C-alpha cells in the first residue's frame, strides 16, 4: 500500500485521520474471521467522508476499530495503523485512548434508544459528558452548557427534555440528544454510524441537515457510515465503498457517481430504483449475495458475483489502482493492476 497516495479530494492539507491497511479480526466458533481486511483511506480536516456498503461489509467494524470500541475479547486489530493527529491509535494505552475517545473523537449510533441509558434522565446523561471530559466546569456551568447544546440541536424546550427519560422522546428527538452529547466536547471528528437508518425520511432530512450545519459552525470532520448511496451523494465530500471487509473503491463523491470504476460500485448504483425510470421495468441486479465472512472467495472477494470475472481474480486480491481523477482508486484487475 502506497501511503502517499492516500490523498483526499478536498485540498492538500494533511489528513486528520488516516487508516492504513487495517485488519480487524473476530474469533468465532468457526475460527478467526477478518471483518476488515486491509482497509485504507484518509480524511481531510473539516470534510465529510462516507463509508458505504451492505450489511457485513465491515463499515461498522471499521468505525469501532477507530474508536477502540471493538467487542472484547472476541474482536481485535491484528495489523495496520490508524493515525489521528500524529498518533497511532491501536498502540495507545487505555488511558491515552480515553483522552481522545468521547472528547476529540465522538460517535453516534443507529439506534439512539439502545445508546442512551434508559434509567437516567437526559439531563444527567449530558451532564456526564461534561463531568468526564470537561471536569473544570462547575455544576451550574455544566447545566447551562447542556441547555445551550440542546438548543443548538434544535430542541425547543431543553428544560423539559432534560427532565425526561429516553423512552419519553421520539426517535428523532433521541437522535438529537445523542448528537448534543457527541458534540458537547467540540470534537475534531464525529463518527456517525447509520445515524438516520431508524428514522423516517422527513426526520432523516432534519437530522442530516442538522449535522451539516453544526459541522460548518464547529469545523469538525464527519465520518458518515451508511448503506444509502443517496445519503452519501448528498452529504459527503469523499466516499469509500466497502465489500467483504475490503475497500473496493474510494473517490471524491462526484467521481464516484459520475465515473464509478469497480463492478460492485457500478452494480450498487444501478440497482437503486430511480425516480426517473419507467415503472415496473426490471432493475439491473448483482447476482447472488454476500458470502459469510468465513466463506469469502480467495483473491477478489467480489469474484463470485462479478459479471466481468477473470481467472486472475480467483487467485490474488487485486491491488488498489488509480482511476482518472486524483484521489480516485479502485481495486480491480479490469483497471490494469498487476498482482
Amino acid at each position, binding site marked *: 500500500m502506497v501511503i502517499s497516495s492516500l490523498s483526499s479530494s478536498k485540498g492538500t492539507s494533511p489528513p486528520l485521520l488516516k487508516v492504513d491497511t487495517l485488519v480487524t479480526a473476530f474469533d468465532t466458533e468457526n475460527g478467526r474471521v477478518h471483518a476488515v481486511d486491509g482497509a485504507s483511506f484518509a480524511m481531510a480536516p473539516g470534510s465529510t467522508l462516507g463509508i458505504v456498503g*451492505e450489511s457485513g461489509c465491515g463499515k461498522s467494524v471499521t468505525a469501532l476499530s477507530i474508536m477502540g470500541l471493538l467487542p472484547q475479547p472476541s474482536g481485535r486489530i491484528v495489523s495496520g495503523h490508524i493515525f489521528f493527529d500524529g498518533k497511532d491509535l491501536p498502540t495507545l494505552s487505555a488511558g491515552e485512548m480515553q483522552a481522545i475517545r468521547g472528547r476529540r473523537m465522538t460517535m453516534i449510533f443507529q439506534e439512539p434508544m439502545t445508546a442512551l441509558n434508559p434509567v437516567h434522565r437526559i439531563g444527567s446523561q449530558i451532564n456526564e459528558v461534561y463531568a468526564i471530559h470537561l471536569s473544570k466546569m462547575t455544576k451550574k456551568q455544566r447545566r447551562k452548557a447542556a441547555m445551550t447544546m440542546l438548543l443548538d440541536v434544535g430542541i425547543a424546550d431543553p428544560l423539559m427534555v432534560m427532565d425526561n427519560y429516553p423512552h419519553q422522546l421520539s426517535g428523532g428527538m433521541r437522535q438529537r440528544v445523542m448528537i448534543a452529547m457527541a458534540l458537547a466536547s467540540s470534537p475534531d471528528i464525529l463518527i456517525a454510524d447509520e445515524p438516520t437508518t431508524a428514522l423516517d425520511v422527513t426526520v432523516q*432530512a432534519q437530522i442530516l441537515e442538522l449535522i451539516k450545519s453544526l459541522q460548518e459552525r464547529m469545523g469538525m470532520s464527519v465520518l458518515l457510515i451508511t448503506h444509502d448511496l443517496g445519503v452519501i451523494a448528498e452529504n459527503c465530500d469523499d466516499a469509500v465503498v466497502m465489500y467483504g471487509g475490503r475497500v473496493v473503491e474510494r473517490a471524491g463523491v462526484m467521481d464516484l457517481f459520475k465515473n464509478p470504476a469497480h463492478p460492485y460500485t457500478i452494480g450498487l448504483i444501478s440497482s437503486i430504483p430511480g*425516480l426517473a425510470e419507467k415503472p415496473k421495468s426490471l432493475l439491473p441486479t448483482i447476482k447472488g449475495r454476500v458470502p459469510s465472512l468465513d466463506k469469502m472467495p480467495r483473491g477478489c472477494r467480489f469474484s463470485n458475483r462479478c459479471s466481468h470475472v477473470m481467472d486472475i481474480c480467483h487467485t490474488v486480491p487485486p491491488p488498489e489502482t488509480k482511476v482518472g481523477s486524483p484521489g480516485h482508486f479502485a481495486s480491480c484487475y479490469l483497471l490494469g493492476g498487476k498482482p
Partner: protein
Amino acid sequence: MTDSREKQPKGRHIDLSLKPDTILSVMGLTKHFPVRGGIFLGQTGVVHAVDDVSFSIKKGETLGLVGESGCGKTTLGRCVVGLYPPTSGTVFLHGKNIALGNPRQMKSMRLQMQMIFQDPFESLNARHTVGEILREKYVIHGRKGGKTDKEIGALLERVGLSGDDIHRFPHEFSGGQRQRIGIARAITLDPEVIICDEPVSALDVSVQSQILNLMVTLQREMGLTYLFISHDLAVVKHVSDRIAVMYLGKIVEYAKARSLYETPYHPYTRALLSAIPLPDPLARKQRIILKGEVPSPENPPLGCRFHTRCPHVMDRCSKVEPLLKPLKVQGSTHFTACHLYS
C-alpha cells in the same frame, strides 16, 4: 373528531363505480384501537390508526401505499386481508363484501388474497422445513396438489430458489432468500391479490432489486394485483401504477404514479419527495424540511391533520377537514385533500 360513520355514503369522492376490471375496493375503512390505562385498565383513549380511507385497484395493477411510520399503512393492509376487524367500512373483493364475512367466507377469500410480510425472519415458522411451510397451504384449504416434492420444488424454482431447499429450515437462508420463501408461500394457491407490507425494507440494496424484479415478473406472469405498502418512495414509484400517500390515518393524495412524482400537489407529498436523498451529487434540489414530528394518532389535530407541520397553513386548515377531491382539471384522476386547491 367527527364520527366518520355519520358521513354516508363513505368514500364517494373516489372512483368507486365498480367497473368490471376493479378487483379490490375499499370504502370508508376505519380502524380505531382502544387505549387502556389506569388501575382498572379502562379505556382512556382511541388511536385513530386509519380514518375513512377509500380506494380501488384494478386487476393486474399495483397500488402503492406510502407514508411514514405511524401513518396507518400497515393497519390498513391488515384490515384489508381481515387480520384486523375494521371498526367500520367495507372491503369488496370482486364486488363481494368481505370485511364482515363469517370465518368460513374469510377462509375462502384468503384463497384469492394473500400477504407478504416485512420481516422474513419472524414470518416463517422456525420449526418447519420450507416444504412443510408451503405444503401447509394445501392442507388448510383442502386442496389437492403439493403432495410431491416435485410440485413444491417447482414452486421454489419459480421464486429463484432451488428444489433441493425443500428440506432446509428458514434459519439456513439469508434475508433475501427468506423473503423468496414468503413470496412462494403467498403464490402457492394462485391468488389474485397480494398485500405486500414493506416486502423489501429489511433487505440490502443489491438483494432488494432482485426481490423487486421477482415481484414484477410474477405479476406479469400470473396477472397478480398488488397492494404495495412501503415507506420508501423510490421503491413505491418503481413498482406502482397508482400511489396513495397516507398521513396520520388519512389518504392525502392519490394519483397515477408518474403524475404524483412529476407534479405533487399536497404539501406533505412535496416535502416527502424532496426529502429522498438521491444517488446523484449533481441533483441539487430545493429541500423542504418539515418542522417537528408526526403528532400522536391518539389525538390527531383537528381540521387538516397535517396543519401543525404544513408550510402553507391557513386559518381554515385548523378548522375544516379537507376532503380528498379530484383537481379542478377536466377529467383529472389526481386526487388531493388540501384547502390550497379548493
